[in-house]
C-alpha cells in the first residue's frame, strides 16, 4: 500500500513540475547553475572512471583471448561493445545516481527541513517547478557526459591495449570499426535520456517529500541512491528488451 502511495506521489510530482512556470529570466539562471552543479562538476570523475574502466576491459579481454585463431582486433571490438552498450550509459548512470542523486536529494531535503520550500510556496512560487524543472533541463545534457564517457572509455582501452603490449594500434582500431552499427549508439543514447530523467526526478522526489531533520536527510539520500539505481536497472532491462531483442 505504501509503495502504491509513493508511486502516486511521484507521478503527481511530475505533473506539478510542469505547471505554474517560474519567471523565464530566473529559470534561465537556475538552469545554468544546475548545468554547472550537475554536468560540469561531474566531468572529472566521469573521465577518470571511464578511462580506467576502458583500460581494464581491454586488458581483461586480451588476457582471455590468447588463442592464436582469435584475431587481436577482438580487443578493440569487445572494448567498444562493452563501453557503448552498457558501461557508459548504464553503469556510469548508477555511479551518477550516487554523485548527482545524493547532491539533489540532500540539497532539496535540507531546504525542506529549514522551511525554505515553505518560504517559496508562501511567496506563491511553484516550488517543484522552481527546484526540479531546471534539473531536468540541465540533465538533458547528460547524453553529452555519456558521449564523453564512451570516448574516454575507448581511449583508455586503446592506451592499455597498445601501450600494455596486448594489441597493435591498427588491430585495435580495426576492432573498433568491425561490425559497427549506428543503431547501437542510438539505443545507448535513448537509454541515456531515460536515465537522465530518472536521475533528475527520483532524487528530487526523495528530497522534496522527506520528513524530519538532518538525520532523515541522510536517510533520504541513501534511499534516493537505492531507488534511482533500481529504476535505472529496470528501465535498462525494459529498453533493451524493446529495442535490441
Amino acid at each position, binding site marked *: 500500500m505504501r509503495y502504491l502511495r509513493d508511486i502516486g506521489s511521484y507521478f503527481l510530482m511530475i505533473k506539478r513540475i510542469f505547471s*505554474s512556470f*517560474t*519567471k523565464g*529570466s*530566473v529559470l534561465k539562471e537556475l538552469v545554468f547553475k544546475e548545468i554547472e552543479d550537475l554536468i560540469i562538476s561531474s566531468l572529472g570523475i566521469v573521465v577518470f572512471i571511464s578511462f580506467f574502466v576502458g583500460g581494464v576491459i581491454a586488458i581483461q579481454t586480451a588476457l582471455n583471448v590468447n588463442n592464436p585463431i582469435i584475431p587481436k582486433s577482438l580487443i578493440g571490438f569487445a572494448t567498444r561493445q562493452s563501453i557503448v552498450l552498457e558501461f557508459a550509459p548504464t553503469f556510469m548512470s548508477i555511479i551518477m545516481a550516487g554523485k548527482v542523486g545524493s547532491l539533489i536529494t540532500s540539497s532539496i531535503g*535540507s*531546504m525542506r527541513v*529549514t*522551511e*525554505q520550500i*515553505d*518560504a517559496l*510556496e*508562501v*511567496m*506563491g*512560487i511553484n516550488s517543484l517547478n522552481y527546484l526540479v524543472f531546471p534539473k531536468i533541463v540541465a540533465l538533458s545534457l547528460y547524453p553529452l557526459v555519456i558521449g564523453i564517457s564512451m570516448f574516454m572509455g575507448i581511449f583508455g582501452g586503446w592506451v592499455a591495449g597498445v601501450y600494455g603490449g596486448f594489441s597493435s594500434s591498427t588491430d585495435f582500431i580495426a576492432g573498433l570499426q568491425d561490425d559497427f552499427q549506428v543503431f547501437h549508439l542510438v539505443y545507448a543514447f535513448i537509454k541515456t535520456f531515460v536515465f537522465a530523467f530518472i536521475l533528475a526526478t527520483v532524487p528530487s522526489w526523495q528530497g522534496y517529500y522527506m520528513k524530519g531533520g538532518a538525520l532523515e536527510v541522510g536517510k533520504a539520500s541513501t534511499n534516493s541512491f537505492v531507488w534511482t539505481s533500481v529504476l535505472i536497472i529496470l528501465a535498462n532491462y525494459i529498453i533493451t528488451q524493446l529495442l535490441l531483442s
Partner: protein
Amino acid sequence: MIKVENIHKSFGDEDILKGISTVFEKGKTNLIIGQSGSGKSVFLKCLLGLFKAEKGFIYFEDEAIQNMDEDQQRDLREDTGMLFQGGALFDSMTVEENVMFPLRMFTKQKKSEMKARVNEVLSRVQLEGANKKYPSEISGGMQKRVSIARAIVNKPKYLFCDEPNSGLDPKTATVIDNLIQEITHENNITTIVVTHDMNSVMEIGENIVFLKSGKLVWQGNNEEIFKTDNEDVTDFVYSSDLFKKIRDVQLKENS
C-alpha cells in the same frame, strides 16, 4: 484586515482546529498565543493557505480565499510576507540576493531599482553593509532581520511571523518585536504573529487571540490580558515565576 469564520481542520481522526472565528485588524500587530499543541501553527498555515481548512472561510479584505481561483491565490501570496521560525533564508544566496528574491520573481524592475529597494529595507532593519554575506556568516538575530527585510521588500499587505523570537536572547528578541510593530504601523499592514513568548505579548500585543485545544478561548490586548479572569489565560500568563512575582507585587500594592 483578515476575517476568519468557523475554521475547522483535522489530521486523520484528530481535530486540530475546532471552529475558530475572529478578525485580525489592519495596522495592528495581531498575536496568536497558546501552549504548544494548541493549534497555533496549524491555524497560521491555514491562514497562509499551506493547509486547506475543511470547513469555514478566511476572508482577505472581503474576498474569501476558498472562493479564489489559482491566479487570485497567487496574487494574494505576492501580497504576503512571511517571517519563518528559523528564518528560512536561501543558503545558496547572499543577504542581498535573498532580499531581492521577491522583487526578481514578481516585478519587472531594473536591477538598479531592485538594488536601491534592497538597500532601503536592509537599512530599515539596520543591516547596512551585510549585502554580500551569506546566511551562514551572520548571527541568528541578523538572519531574522534579513528575513523581515525579505518579507517586506515587495511592500506586502499582510505580514505573518511564526515564533519570531525563538532562539534569540531577550534583548535581540525585543529588537525584533519592536521592528515588527514599527513596520506594521509605518506601512499600515495586517500583521499576525504566532508566539508563546510573554515578553512579545507585553511589547507588541495590540490584539491577542488565545487558543486552547484548537478553540479560541479569549481575545483582547496586552493590557486586558493581565486583568482577565479567564482561567486558561491566567494559567498560561502566570506559568512563569517572573510573571507570578510581578502579579504578587501588584496584588500587595493594590491591597
